[in-house]
């Protein structure tokens, strides 16, 4: 579902809930991986199978943050108890899969959709379809009380950390996100030498620079024409918040908004990864 980049369903309210995640963005499977990580992943899987989702979440969240799509081959006996899987059984498991499963288990349906859509984009190159199982599931579970659930934002195959405060805010029917959190996943480095009220984004590809200033709708750009936002950035708790959909539009991206579950997926084309991610 592609929607207007800056309009949210009028019934939605800006209620943000957070989980216990650290305040960093998720990354591709590039981070260091140790035997302990494998054990953590296996333990998280066992907790998932035992329906102990919060325990699973606590274990898998760090792994999903550093190497969400890393495939780890887990085997019966060595990694998993035989009460759960038969001897000889083995399968590849990704942290992101367990993360989605745990979020579903604890009833964080918008975040579940957010991670599911990131997985979908990673695996299939497209966000969740309207009739996809995660969306149907979330809609059935959420029912009409969507305000009780957290906002969620995915960018390509990653997502805004659910634990960042303030990560996402609905204001004037527009979803605002902390620019410093969004920038790395647009391929920019954020320069905040003058504080959070004025942030300059830099990268190698055009536009090579973008300057966001609190209260100003104009975004000064280098390499492209300057851009005017419909909603001016503002600071919240000392953090510069920008309209997510408008920034995506600035970068010629797609915006997919799922109002029933209060989840937005930004598809930003040709976002170069950080060197370490390549």
């Amino acid at each position: 579902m592609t929607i207007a980049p800056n309009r949210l369903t009028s019934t939605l309210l800006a209620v943000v809930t957070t989980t216990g995640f650290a305040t960093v963005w998720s990354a591709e499977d590039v981070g260091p991986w140790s035997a302990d990580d494998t054990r953590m992943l296996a333990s998280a899987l066992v907790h998932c199978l035992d329906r102990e989702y919060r325990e699973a979440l606590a274990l898998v969240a760090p792994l999903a943050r550093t190497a969400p799509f890393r495939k780890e081959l887990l085997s019966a006996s060595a990694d998993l108890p035989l009460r759960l899987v038969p001897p000889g059984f083995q399968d590849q498991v990704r942290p992101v899969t367990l993360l989605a499963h745990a979020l579903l288990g604890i009833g964080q349906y918008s975040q579940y959709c957010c991670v599911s859509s990131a997985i979908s984009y990673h695996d299939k190159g497209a966000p969740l379809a309207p009739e996809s199982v995660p969306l149907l599931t979330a809609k059935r579970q959420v029912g009409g009380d969507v305000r009780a659930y957290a906002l969620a934002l995915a960018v390509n195959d990653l997502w805004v950390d659910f634990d960042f405060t303030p990560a996402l805010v609905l204001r004037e029917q527009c979803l605002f996100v902390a620019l410093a959190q969004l920038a790395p996943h647009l391929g920019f480095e954020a320069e905040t030498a003058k504080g959070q009220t004025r942030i300059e984004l830099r990268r190698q590809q055009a536009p090579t620079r973008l300057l966001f200033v609190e209260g100003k709708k104009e975004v000064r750009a280098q390499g492209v024409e300057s851009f005017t936002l419909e909603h001016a950035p503002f600071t919240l708790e000392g953090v510069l918040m920008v309209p997510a959909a408008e920034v995506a539009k600035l970068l010629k991206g797609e915006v997919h908004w799922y109002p029933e579950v209060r989840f937005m997926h930004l598809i930003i084309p040709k976002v170069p990864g950080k060197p370490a991610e390549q």
Partner: protein
Amino acid sequence: MVGWLVLSADGPGLWPQPPVDPPRVIYTRPAPCEDEEGQEAQAPDGPGPHEHVWVDDQYFPWFDMQAACVNVGDGSEAARYVRCGDYVEVSPGSPLDWDICGNEGCSFPGGLADNAVSVEQWDDGGAEGQFGHFEPTGFVADGYITHYKAPMQPGLVSLQNRVDDIHYAEDPATGQPVQTFDDFPPDGVWGSATTITVWDFTISDGAPGFRPVLDAWVGPFGAKIEPATDHNGQSMARPIYFELFSSAEPGYCLNRTREHDPHEWNDTGLGDTDLKFSFPDQQGLTVHSTDFNGWWRNEAWTNEEVTTCAVDIMCLDYGAFGTLTATATVIGYPTAARLLLSDNPRTYSTYQVNGQTLYREYAPIPWDVDANYIADVWMRNSGNAADDEEDEGQCPVKGDGFTRYEEYRGFCVNGPWTELDPDAHKDVFVLDWNGLGIGDFAALGVVPHRLYVPQQPAEFGPDYQMNPNRGTANKQLQHGVMLVVWVNDPGYLGYTVPRLNAPKPTSRIDVVQIQGLFPPPQQQEAVGVIVSHELGHACNLEHHRTGTFDCIMWDPPTHLPHAYCSENPGCRMLWRLY
């Protein structure tokens, strides 16, 4: 013409006299065959050619016709032991008959004419043997007698023959045959008996109606040497040696075995034979099972000379097959026992080779006349061991990967053993590790066998092989489908990789996602549908998004169908198990 002249009413009375006719003297002229037609014989009425006056032999018993003992074989003592149904040469010995001419000047030297003697009858005292001779086509129980076929009932048999004189002899003076004295009685005399031992060494059928079953006793198989004593009154008892030739399939059925550490005699591991003599030794027997280059050789022998001995066999495999032989040196050389089906009427098991009837010299375990390793009594013993012919409509591949012999040998399913039906529907094993059930999978047309006891992983082999103990008449490795609760990627309520054409076919079911998608009243039903859908994939079905909507293989099956479609595309006819 021949005339009779009574010489005397009383004989010399030197020998016991039977009530006989009066002594006779026969006058002879040239043989009747020389008579000219129409010429009547006349009594002698003066000097002329010598007339033979043959004296009745009863007054001269030493000239009487005498039969001889029957000669058997080469006349040796060994030749007097004849196995039931075997042939032995017989001859009448040397019967003789001299007739004496009472007239002086007889042309026969000393007046004695040597008569030929013919054997008129052979007799074995009602033993039901047969006298006859061999022709190119075989033994003919008639005509010229050269051989005796021993009866099928062992025992002591007295052979006799009855001889009669041929009362003609060639007159030395004329060179013409002349009639001599026709010895009494007119139908000849019996010689004294030659007693032989008609013996046999048999083993009884201990497996009539037997179908191999684990830990079942088969038998008894009774070996017997008959008669107990020979014609000399000597015992026929001999040491008897049994040897058991057995299959050695791994395990005791396709998917279970029993092994101990240390090894026990009734283990069913690789190399253990499926049929064994029991341990400890059976009474009166020494049992010896030898690991013979990795294979067990089962022997047993009697501790003493015996005429009878019975052994029991333990069956250690549901697909066991083998033979039991018994050997004894009854007469000079080792002899295999013949399989005796019945004592009364005495019935042997025979078979034909190139038109020749041969005795079966082993006891089959079980009976398997069609030699397909399957007991003849099995109701589905109607084809070859390696058949895998089950067909389901237009399914592209016949069979289910298990051969007729394998389905006969059977499987353990949640403990108890069961055999399958190789002629009906295709069998599929589902290893339901987490107790999900198999939903509507049977609606596909398969016969699902659900292994739902995780505590019994021994019921499948590595890579979920269902015939890890395959051996005889195996066609291929056939796997079961592992059904396991798993954490799938979002949107995948289940997924199945690999399928039933590769090791470890596995259907992973994400129950949490299913329960998230469906309201509680439908959740159990939904799990069943998703399981059925994934098991369809395991059977190499693809899901479809066109055609028949009310099909389990519709993608996604969120409307909870309970049947596989018969058309468009017709999932019921498209699946295959390997």
